[in-house]
């Protein structure tokens, strides 16, 4: 299994278990997200602690998940390693597109107190 999905306080926590969120892994990640969204999940925390390499395909799978959500929800990310954090910064996705948290707990608290918009 590449992912571990759990529900915490109304927030779906997705733990990415692979070392690489790259072009090889992105399609699986995206279909996991699409499944969860179709099951009704709207608020997500993606735990990237295990990931030590992420490329533009990994980022693209995140953004396309956002589009599938269609504005009626949120995807936040947490526990980024140094390299992954740098990638979010270089691509400016840390500026408003994704909220970034230090820990799963923080992220879940923040998202569970946000009312879903849709």
């Amino acid at each position: 299994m590449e992912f571990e999905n759990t529900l915490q306080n109304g927030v779906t926590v997705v733990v990415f278990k692979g070392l690489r969120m790259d072009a090889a892994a992105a399609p699986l990640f995206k279909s996991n997200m699409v499944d969860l969204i179709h099951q009704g999940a709207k608020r997500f925390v993606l735990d990237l602690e295990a990931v030590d390499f992420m490329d533009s395909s990994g980022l693209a799978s995140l953004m396309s998940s956002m589009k599938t959500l269609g504005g009626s929800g949120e995807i936040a990310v947490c526990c980024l390693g140094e390299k992954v954090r740098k990638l979010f910064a270089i691509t400016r996705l840390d500026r408003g597109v994704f909220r970034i948290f230090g820990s799963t707990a923080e992220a879940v608290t923040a998202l569970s107190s946000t009312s879903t918009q849709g």
Partner: protein
Amino acid sequence: MDTIELSIASRLELVHLMGLAVRGICGGLPLTPDESDAMELAVCEAVNNSIKHAYAGRPDGVVRVTLAVDGTGLVLCVYDKGTPLEDRQKLNNDLAVARSIDELPEGGMGLFLIRNAADSVGYKAGEQGNVLVLRKAFRKGS
């Protein structure tokens, strides 16, 4: 120039081996850790592009990478024999700043990350195939 050639079949599951090999080589060059990380990422992006776009996902192609080093810097070339990149303008595309969710790019970040890692990026399509060329000068001491 000291040169090494690396090659894999055009399968996305193999790209990490290329990235790791380039990371290893960069670790022995006078590059900062940030520069090495960026170079590893750039190679993976370039090889992904050859597989996804030039070979359109066909697994029977070959992607070759050559790395040439001298005292002043490195030149990294990524070769494929697939359909060439037609619109050269894409090499210079900047990242769009999305103003709404619908504007969020779902692609187009690869070439930006490649440019971000290198001092200059070139591309050439020819009879023998296509090549993307990255140049990077050494700035760190030694």
